[in-house]
């Protein structure tokens, strides 16, 4: 079945046999993802990984994820982070139940996942400044809010390149606010780099910066690619949804 969304034509597959052909048998031939919606407001244009076409940059990043970012010592570190943050959630809930109060589990869960992710990505900064998860969360929610507020016409219609309601402008300014914060964080990392540290103490930002500074790397990462990688990790929390 094909559907038309505005000016976009999409083929919809709803049976598992055809899905198997696409996801398994012909997986490499369908290994790109399409993106819709306006993209001109993204200040990191061209630095996309999660939605990047199936090419050398995407393969490089995927390999980095599998061999470094989500492997070895990192996985052990993640176990500690998850158990620590689950305990923190439990202690909040114990307190609530003692006082006979109700709680909004939705909010508690969002706080939990934000803290887990922040510690995974930039654990060192979080230890020094516990407000970082909250600050990032705020900015990322703003970006989300703008990005989802685009109307139907703006997303799919021929008018999508005109910023009719000023949403694109807001979106761009939120992304710049994020840029400012993450720039500061990355600088702090670079400044702290003086003493050699052990592999097991590294967090995701450390590894990304190592790759950035490695002259022998297969592919030179750009700062924008790093910043955007971090942003999108937050936007989709490792993309249960978006990576699919």
């Amino acid at each position, binding site marked *: 079945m094909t559907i038309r969304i505005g000016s976009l034509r999409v083929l919809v597959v709803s049976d598992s046999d055809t899905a198997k052909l696409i996801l398994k048998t012909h997986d490499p031939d369908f290994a790109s993802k399409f993106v819709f919606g306006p993209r001109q407001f993204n200040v990191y244009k061209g630095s996309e990984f999660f939605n990047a076409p199936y090419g050398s940059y995407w393969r490089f990043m995927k390999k980095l994820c599998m061999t470094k970012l989500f492997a070895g010592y990192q996985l052990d570190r993640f176990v500690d982070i998850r158990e620590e943050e689950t305990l923190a959630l439990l202690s909040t809930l*114990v307190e609530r139940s003692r006082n006979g109060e109700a709680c909004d589990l939705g909010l508690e869960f969002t706080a939990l996942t934000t803290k887990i992710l922040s510690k995974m990505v930039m654990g060192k900064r979080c230890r020094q400044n516990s407000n970082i998860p909250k600050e990032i969360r705020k900015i990322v929610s703003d970006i989300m809010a703008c990005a989802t507020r685009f109307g139907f016409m703006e997303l799919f219609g021929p008018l999508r390149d005109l910023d009719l309601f000023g949403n694109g402008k807001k979106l761009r300014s939120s992304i710049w606010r994020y840029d400012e914060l993450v720039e500061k964080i990355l600088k702090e990392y670079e400044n702290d780099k003086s003493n050699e540290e052990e592999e097991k103490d590294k967090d995701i930002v450390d590894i990304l910066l190592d790759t950035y500074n490695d002259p022998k790397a297969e592919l030179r990462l750009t700062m924008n690619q790093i910043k955007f990688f971090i942003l999108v990790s937050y936007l989709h929390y490792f993309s249960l949804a978006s990576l699919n």
Partner: protein
Amino acid sequence: MASLDTTSAALQWTMTELINHPDIFAKIRDEIKSVVGTTNRLIKESDLQKLPYLQAAIKETLRLHPVGPLLRRESNTDMKINGYDVKSGTKIFINAYGIMRDPTTYKDPDKFMPERFLVVEQDTERKMGYYQQYMLELKGQDVNYLAFGSGRRGCLGASHASLVLSLTIGSLVQCFNWTVKGDEDKIKIKLPTGFSASGTAGGSSLMCSPELCFDPFGYQTK
């Protein structure tokens, strides 16, 4: 606005289903008790592979409420699929939501039945532990289950996400009894509109009261 955080949406959906199905909630708690035994301690990540029913309940939640209901793909070359020509650059949605509620694969597809995943396990020819098989299936080895996508573009964070889900849900079930705020004892599930991942009562919030039944901090808090 609805919660846009996928992991937190999945946590909410699971708690919603468990509060609405007290019998399943009780089974998970019994399973945890049998693993923890008389040691009286909080569950840890290393316990999770001994908790197949908990895992099945989470898997069932993601089957009914996938946070990524449509997978996006685009073809790189011209090819033939089912006898049709598919041009390079064709944009494709794979309807994971539809496939996971297909009555030919899943009996009573709209029902919340974690048991269905425990039965499948016994039928399998593969000689591997339940947990390994579970992880493989999460990653879309079985095209009938696409909560985390599949193939090269499948979800990178599937194992991490599933650990967060199991540990958090397991702890909440072990430590507390939950009641919904208000007169009703069930949470009304409103079907989400659009691309929203979360569709619980009242949009993003899930108000409920915890009643302590096992103190995870034991003597420390006395």
